[in-house]
């Protein structure tokens, strides 16, 4: 197992293909993420962005090609090697995915208890620090079911940060939140970016949030990368598909669905 050089990209995909059954989701994409940059993977529903995220954390196995994360090719790594990579990354799930039978504090403590030999008192202190960073210190002893959607995402972030990861992944951080809470999450990510020397990979379909937090943006469409550029450059791009996405123009066939919806709502 060869390793990338320290200066090279921390994550890179080489002709990466992923398929579910016979349906190919990612059609041979190439990309890279530099250490300590914040990259946003932007795309609509069905663009393959969630699949790309799942592939980068080893939840999906590529059909062909390579995906290097922190010097390990997840396409060929053994389960033990993938576990070693996973100890260096944190993933904040869309719905939080907090373990429902444990309190918020126990959720954050879980990776520390399982993977380190730290004393219980040390873990307690670390948990409180992580919860403080996401503004949930008061909710340490709450059960996940007692939290709001935004708080669950914050708690999930605290858990993702528990092991001081080199790479933080976010799955749709602002999905399902009202604009104010969503802006709060964006600010949180911006603060983390300033405070920690961490690589941040965000998967989202929210344009405003993407332009706010990203250093670079990868635009995915139907399993292909249509653009990979610094944020400012992308804003100027004239690529029709990007313009369509940026200007929120519906596809012609998708438009039919919208028309039908309008017809339906007008009738009511």
């Amino acid at each position, binding site marked *: 197992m060869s390793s990338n050089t320290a200066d090279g990209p921390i994550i890179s995909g080489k002709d990466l293909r992923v398929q579910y059954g016979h349906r190919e989701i990612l059609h041979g994409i190439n990309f890279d993420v530099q250490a300590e940059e914040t990259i946003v993977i932007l795309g609509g529903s069905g663009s393959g962005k969630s699949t790309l995220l*799942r592939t980068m*954390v*080893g*939840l999906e196995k590529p059909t062909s090609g390579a995906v290097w994360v922190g010097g390990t090719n997840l396409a060929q790594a053994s389960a033990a090697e993938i*576990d*070693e990579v*996973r*100890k260096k*990354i944190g*993933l904040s*799930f*869309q*719905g939080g*995915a*907090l*373990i*429902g*039978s444990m309190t918020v504090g126990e959720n954050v403590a*879980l*990776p520390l*208890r*399982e*993977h380190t*030999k730290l004393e219980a008192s040390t873990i307690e202190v670390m948990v409180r620090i992580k919860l403080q960073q996401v503004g949930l210190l008061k909710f340490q002893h709450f059960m996940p079911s007692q939290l709001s959607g935004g708080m669950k995402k914050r708690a*999930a972030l605290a*858990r993702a940060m528990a092991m001081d990861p080199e790479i933080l992944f976010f799955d749709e951080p602002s999905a399902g939140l009202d604009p104010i809470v969503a802006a709060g999450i964006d600010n949180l990510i911006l603060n983390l970016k300033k405070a920690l020397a961490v690589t941040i990979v965000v998967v989202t379909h929210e344009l405003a949030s993407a332009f706010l937090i990203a250093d670079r943006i990868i635009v995915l469409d139907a399993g292909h990368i249509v653009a990979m550029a610094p944020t400012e450059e992308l804003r100027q791009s004239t690529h029709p598909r990007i313009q369509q996405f940026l200007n929120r123009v519906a596809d012609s066939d998708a438009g039919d669905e919208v028309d039908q919806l309008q017809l339906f709502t007008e009738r009511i």
Partner: protein
Amino acid sequence: MPRLRIAELLSSIGSAAESRLAYLGGLAQLLVRASTHVFTSPLKRSLSFQRACHQAMVIGVGALPVISFITFFIGVIMALQGAYELRRFGALRLVADGVAISITRELGPLVTAIVVIGRSGSAFAAEIGTMKVTEELDALETMALHPIGFLVTPKLLAMLVMMPCLTIWADLMGVLGGSVFGVLGADFTFATYLAATIDALFMRDIITGLVKSIVFALVITGVGCQEGFATGAGSEEVGRSTTAAVVTSIFLVVLVDLVFTAIFYVTGGS
């Protein structure tokens, strides 16, 4: 044409058999992987033990009241049913023997298994199924924690300890139920009923019951967890896998019971 039909029939039987065998293979694989997690990663052993203790409380201690009542009543029922036939031969004193043997060899383990399926087998499937739907299983994996080691191993350990314990308790309660009839309807005193029970039982009877209960523990844990992991997307799928866990567990428990009873019969001699 008929030949074609037969071929179709055979192939459908074959594929059905293949999928059943694959299911059993999956079950065995799950149980083996869960047991290997007991011996790997010493760092996690104490946490796993804690979780197993918690499960043991839920599975075992939580089931005590309902198992006590049910097996007590079944003890009374067996005594009544036995007495109905035995009194025609004037052999009412054999009620104690009948109850003791039927409870320890058969009904104690079986009724315990069915209650545990209803309480815990279904709960395993629902818990793991819900965790799959809410991405909690994915979350465990991305934290480099293995869902099988984290969720199945503690349940398996707890079940392997608690099922025999519950079965012994069920045996006692069943005999107690029988003694109520014995004292009220068959001229026993409590002490003579117990003495008759002890006389009637061989260690072998109790041990066959306990062997069964351990196999039942494997079946219930395996099926409950396997159905949980097999849950598809969406909350209605959790209901489906819970139902499947209960139905499949009951079926397999009775099947295993039949196989073991037959083995004990053939090897028992007397």
